[in-house]
């Protein structure tokens, strides 16, 4: 079990705030860490990795990484870290990138096999695509057999198809190695697919901690479905008003009454929901 209790004063873009979290992780858990940008997610990961200083305690199955009296350097913590920008060693080929961390060829080849990179062992990072680079980066992070794997928005720079593929591979790696994992993510489908628990960070504090469905499902009560979207435009068409709303990557048009149209402002985040009807899904 891992116990994390950290305090650190952060100087944010808008205002200073206090990062103050206290939570426990069971061995083998896959945790998604989410929240608005600037809420302290990346800083929390960097503190766990030993890249930034903080007050508090980090206890990893009896081994103290951070306490009042000592701070274990990054080199001594058994951490795997995946950066959003891959951060591969450009002067080494794929296999060398892995072996530099730990000279265990069997493990390296197994990891590359799981992620479909067996044919790319001799390639240098600058000849790989973004998706391939991030796979190498994930494999490299696993080379130390980490006690804690930290993924900092690992897939946000990739296109949706590649993202989905890598999510599956991360899941396969997690099933095979059962590494305790914390992943920063903004993507609800990604969180749903991978994580068993979600932590929501806001202004440096944990405001939600629980089951993925409880936190991410936005419908409640008699609503049959419900989406948040940005109101882009309201147009008057004869006697009615038509609103254009962006939900994720999708644009939809909704009919509004004059009364509703009056109360809404362009650019607002609105909730679009319906009750009691029979939607049909088709593909």
């Amino acid at each position, binding site marked *: 079990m891992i116990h994390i209790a950290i305090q650190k004063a952060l100087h944010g873009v808008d205002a200073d705030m206090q990062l103050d979290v206290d939570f426990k992780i069971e061995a083998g858990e896959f945790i998604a860490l989410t929240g608005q940008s600037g809420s302290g997610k990346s800083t929390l990961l960097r503190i766990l*990795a*030993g*890249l930034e200083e903080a007050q508090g305690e980090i206890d990893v199955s009896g081994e103290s990484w951070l306490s009042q009296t000592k701070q274990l*350097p*990054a*080199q*001594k*913590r058994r*951490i*795997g*870290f995946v*950066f959003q*920008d891959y*951060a*591969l*060693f*450009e*002067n080494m080929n794929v296999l060398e990138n892995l072996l*530099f*961390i*730990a000279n265990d060829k069997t493990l390296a080849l197994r990891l590359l096999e799981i992620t479909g990179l067996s044919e790319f062992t001799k390639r240098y990072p*600058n000849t790989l695509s973004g998706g391939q680079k991030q796979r190498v980066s994930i494999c*490299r992070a696993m*080379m*130390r057999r980490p006690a804690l794997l930290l993924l900092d928005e690992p897939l946000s720079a990739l296109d949706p198809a590649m993202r989905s593929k890598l999510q599956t591979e991360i899941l396969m790696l997690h099933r095979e190695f059962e590494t305790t994992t914390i992943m920063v993510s903004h993507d609800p489908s990604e969180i749903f697919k991978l994580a068993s628990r979600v932590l929501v960070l806001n202004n440096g504090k944990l405001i939600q901690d629980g089951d993925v469905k409880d936190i991410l499902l936005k419908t409640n009560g008699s609503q049959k479905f419900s989406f948040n979207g940005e109101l882009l435009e309201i147009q008057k068409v004869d006697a009615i008003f038509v609103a254009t709303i962006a939900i994720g990557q999708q644009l939809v048009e909704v009919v509004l009454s004059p009364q509703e149209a009056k109360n809404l402002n362009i650019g607002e985040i609105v909730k679009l929901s319906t009750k009691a009807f029979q939607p049909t899904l088709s593909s």
Partner: protein
Amino acid sequence: MLNTLLEMDFSPFVLSFKLASITVIILFIVSLPLAWYLSQTKSKLKPFLEAITALPLVLPPSVLGFYILVALSQNSPLGSFFKETFDINLVFNFTGLVVASCFYSLPFMVQPLQSGFESINKNMIEASYIGGKSKIETIFRVALPNIKPSLLTALIVTFAHTVGEFGVVLMVGGSIPGETKVASVAIYEMVEVLDYKAAHIYSAIMLILSFIVLLSVYIFNAKHNKKFGFTK
């Protein structure tokens, strides 16, 4: 013509290259930790250290030479210590030249290394630390191999600059044949005694060598950047 060339005394060139080689080796050892520290630190001392490192770029060589002379002469604490302990004179000999050259060429080694280290993706360095690698191993196996153009620039330009120095050498070393009379000083003396033929030959050799050195640096860097897809 050939006879003239064969009869010429090239010992000043040999001395210049010996001085430059030793200076490059010493400066690389000294500058590597300094450049690394400057590239990583957020300390308030950084601008002061950078200013001190850059001083030899703007100081007249005579000023630098004068201070080195004062600091190393037998009347100074440092000079008398070396004289009494090791029986080594630090001025008007080759040792003095090496010391002076190390000061004079310091910025040419530190600055390219520092800007090279600063251009490295910080996450790459952190990935090495997280992988359990010490600072020293990270510098030699991750940082330096990723800044080869900067490394080459630092080594070659320091070498070339040391070969080309004149004022400091004259101040600290004088012109003792085989000891402190390097190529640039030799040319100065040839011109003084109106031996233009020798001065022409020496100067032409310096010009061609310098050009070849700089050209090879630029060719290597262009190739390297192309290979690794850098556009800067």
